[in-house]
């Protein structure tokens, strides 16, 4: 039973990490990017490639995965967000990020192969550890660290405060002399780095798999919507709830209906409390 809780919590914390990445992007641009899950997928795939393909030390692999994620995050903003936000049509960012996500997924599929490949062990540990295995506690620890780090970043640093200012009112921030375009690129680079880190840390749990991105985009979004858009604590709670629900459901009823259960959770929360558990009502009326 303990194993079920830990494995559910681990996958849930991966979703929570993706939800945090959503939040960072959303704070400055009010855009929910479809590429969010793909950033984590890139972190996992490139981490595995750096370590098994190029035989680099895992520290360099980690740095590489973060760099690839950050690069892709910045690229997302430049290619798919910047031009589109200048137009008034609010649907367009959905289309452009969807297009970019498809391109990345297919490119990785063509280059890396369509089969999931194993992710190397980061720390020497036997496979008999059971629930204490590193593949479970790495994502859990990472998501907690990410949430704390983001909180410190938002409250203690100038750039964090600029992010908050932009999320409150981008026009007012601009009027006060904040270069909103530059802050937005910065937030996308930061979220890309965090996504790459999350994908790297959860690599042993999810394997390095090209089609992971879409699943993570969806489940991370469900964690976010359940917890409340814009709330980091809510993202953690939503992710944990989703992961635990999935783990217990597949423990009791078998694993065939994971997605159905996840969407069921989303629908129940949206019906009862449309702004999510910890969301503020004026963020986005649903």
């Amino acid at each position, binding site marked *: 039973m303990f194993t079920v809780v830990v494995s559910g919590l681990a996958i849930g914390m991966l979703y929570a990490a993706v939800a945090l990445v959503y939040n960072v992007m959303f704070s400055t641009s009010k855009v929910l990017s479809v590429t969010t899950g793909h950033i984590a997928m890139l972190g996992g795939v490139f981490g595995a490639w750096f370590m098994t393909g190029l035989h680099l030390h895992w520290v360099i692999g980690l740095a590489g995965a973060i760099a690839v994620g950050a690069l892709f995050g910045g690229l997302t903003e430049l290619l798919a967000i910047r031009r589109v936000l200048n137009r008034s049509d609010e649907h367009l960012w959905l289309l452009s990020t969807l297009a970019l996500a498809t391109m990345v997924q297919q490119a990785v599929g063509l280059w890396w192969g369509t089969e999931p490949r194993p992710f190397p062990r980061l720390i020497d540990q036997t496979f008999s550890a059971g629930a204490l295995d590193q593949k479970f506690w790495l994502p859990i620890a990472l998501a907690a660290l990410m949430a704390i780090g983001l909180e410190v970043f938002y409250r203690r640093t100038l750039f964090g405060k600029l992010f908050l200012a932009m999320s409150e009112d981008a026009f007012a921030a601009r009027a006060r002399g904040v270069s909103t375009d530059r802050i937005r690129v910065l937030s996308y680079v930061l979220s890309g780095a965090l996504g790459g880190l999350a994908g790297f840390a959860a690599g042993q749990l999810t394997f390095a798999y090209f089609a992971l991105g879409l699943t993570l985009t969806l489940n991370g979004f469900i964690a976010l919507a359940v917890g409340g858009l814009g709330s980091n604590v809510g993202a953690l709670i939503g992710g944990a709830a989703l992961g635990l629900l999935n783990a217990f459901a597949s423990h009791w009823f078998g694993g065939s209906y*994971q997605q159905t259960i996840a*969407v069921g959770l989303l629908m129940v929360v*949206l019906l009862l409390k449309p702004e999510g558990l910890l969301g503020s009502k004026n963020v986005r009326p649903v």
Partner: protein
Amino acid sequence: MTANLRTGIALAVALLLVATLPRWAGDQYQLHLAALICVYWILIAGLNLVVGYTGQLSIGHVGLLAIGAYAFAILAGKMGWHPAAALIAAGALGGLCGLALGLPSLRLPGFYFAMATMAFALIVGEIVLAQVGLTGGGVGLPGPVFPAPFDTPHGFYYLVAALAVLTTWLSWNVARRLWGIGLMSIRDNPVAAQAVGVPLFRAKLTVFVFSGITAGIAGATFSSLQSYITPDTFVFELSLFFFVCIIIGGRGSIVGPFLGTVVLTALPELVAPLAKLGNFFYGLLLLVVVLAVPEGIGRMVEVVIERVRPRVVSNEPIEPDLPRLARAIGAPS
């Protein structure tokens, strides 16, 4: 030549082309491709009303296609129904599932709706894999053949072409009347649409159910055309393909998405390197269109035509009828 006459001639030519296509199609493969385009178009014609006119970005219609395909394969194949009855049942089931999906999800704003429909497509895939007894699980099911006049490639082509013409006609009827204008107003400004009395939710739900019915019928013919269906047939990328066809063709038009369907279906089959790139190519195309011509290529063509042959704007000055005006305000003339 009046606009009505021109439309009539264009329609007649298009119908003649569709009817005579088997005569000048080179080989069986091209005929198969034409039938595939028709099947896709049956779905896209319905989806076009949802995506192109109403602006609801549904990226999960492959789920409805799968439901229609499996319903047809199970009813006509396993249970031995008459294929015509099974076809109607598949359409009805598609409509019902569209209703079940639309009721909760159409209340959600843009991104939430897109994610809900995407989740629906994944759920359908999951259920198809899990219900081995009904759907054959990962092994799949054979797609039944239609009876006598429609069992040859030629006959089947005429069947799907007739269905495609029918759905085109239905969606055109919706699009060109007040309904179409109402739908476009929902797309462009929901607040203003509601203010002038467009029933937002009911209109959205109605076209969504219609798109569900067409998706179910497309699924039924699709399973017969493919002759064997597995869960791998209905990958999420297929949904994206439908979506890209409409966006590239241009929103708020029927000819644009139709040309998009024809070109995007035929192009990867005829140009070999594109087939290898597959969905990467669709993604790239979508990105380029969204960034360069968000209104779609169809709109771009219209703009070019207007450049080449500017519309004659007749200058009709309006003279005020001064005596009548004076009478109206009661002034002494």
